[in-house]
């Protein structure tokens, strides 16, 4: 069973979003996503300062098998990315919700988070796949 932490929000394209205390958000891919992709061997994350539209393709995760796009779950501006993934993409497999975070962003509108799935809804969605 894939882990779906209760405190996070989710997109149907299998990104998770965590609202931080300073109003920024952290984004990564879900346990289900990393499990489906298999061993990850290359990760490219968006540069700080880049403005992202909702559902814009902005990162790439490549497994031994294939490349997959990662989408911005909400609109906003990138403030940081996880440089450790460049040398150690396998962190995304072993620790998708903590060490495997991909980028942080300042949302254009925090209320956009309400348009994402909560943990229960994402788990229900996974059952339909």
């Amino acid at each position, binding site marked *: 069973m894939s882990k779906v932490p209760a405190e996070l929000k989710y997109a149907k394209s299998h990104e998770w979003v965590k609202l931080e205390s300073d109003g920024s958000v952290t984004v990564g891919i879900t346990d289900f996503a990393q499990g489906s992709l*298999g*061993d990850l*061997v*290359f990760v*490219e994350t968006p540069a700080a300062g880049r403005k992202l539209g909702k559902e814009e393709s902005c990162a*790439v995760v*490549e497994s*031994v*098998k*294939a*490349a997959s796009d990662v989408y911005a779950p909400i609109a906003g501006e990138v403030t940081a990315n996880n440089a450790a993934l460049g040398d150690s993409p396998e962190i995304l497999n072993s620790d998708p919700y903590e060490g495997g975070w991909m980028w942080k962003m300042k949302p254009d509108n925090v209320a956009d988070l309400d348009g994402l799935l909560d943990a229960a809804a994402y788990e229900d969605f996974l059952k339909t796949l």
Partner: protein
Amino acid sequence: MTLKHTALHAEHVRLGAKLVDFAGWDMPIQYSSQLDEHHAVRSDAGMFDVAHMTAVDLSGTRTREFLRKLLANDVAKLQVAGKALYTCMLRDDGGVIDDLICYFIDETHFRVVVNAGTTDKDLAWIREHAAAYGVEVRHRDDLGILAVQGPNARARVLPLLPAALRGPAEALGVFQAAWDGDVFVARTGYTGEDGFELMLPHAELVALWKGLLDAGVRACGLGARDTLRLEAGMNLYGQDMDESTQPLESGLGWTIAWGETAERDFIGRAAIEPLRGASPKKFVGLLLEGRGIMRAHMKLRFANGAVGETTSGGFSPTMKQSVGLARVDRAAEGACEVEIRGQWVAARIVKPPFVRNGKVLL
């Protein structure tokens, strides 16, 4: 469509494999980690269910003569019982119908092993041409095929073989086979490591698989098989060559036996002989120097205007960087760029294989 199952299907399910449709067969792409499975073969021993591939037995007094016509490599090279030969089977226009291994059993018996996705057309082609030679063609779907590969593979297999076969199997040189009844052991493979490929009746194959699991041989999926063969610089049929390409532009010129006197008229010879030493395209290895991962069908460009396209590409778990195979203009050489997801990334031509017997060769 219902997917076909090999005799090991229940084992794959029991071991938690991720199964995919491979040429109509429900096959394991990986069990737990494709990378771990890859490394197990390079450092120890792994095994692959390749029972979707097909053994075909050919018999009759004119079998050798028939195969000298059918195959682009020359079975005249096979003079010792059990000797094996890698070869292409070509269309009249030089397109590659399949690549296969041919084994010499005795003067009236040969065995060929062909790919899963090409089995039906291969059998039709072989039967069509065999009739004139009075050669009997027998599809051995009563046998399964298991590949056991890695530096420790042979040592793990030998104790599990029928007693009469252990000595002969241990004495096998590379590209040689021995057998006892329907149990057939060949020192061949598709990984760049030492090991065996075994053909045996399905029930015995399942027992052997279980014995090898108990002996510490790791079950490996077709995903690891692909990264291993790519590192070993081995072609994959349907990807690196097919009926629309000829062997001289597919890195397979070394498998064509033209002969000293150029008199053997194998199927496809007339079409490809004018290209001998003059093929407008050539086949090369590629090493990615920039960031990213090459995949099949990416564009290449060279400083001198030559262009090309990758036919295979991926991440080399042993080298920890991306490697590939490509078909390029004859004039292509040295440094180039490969278009990865809209960006041109530095790469260069290298001579495969990339990895053999656990060692990086570049």
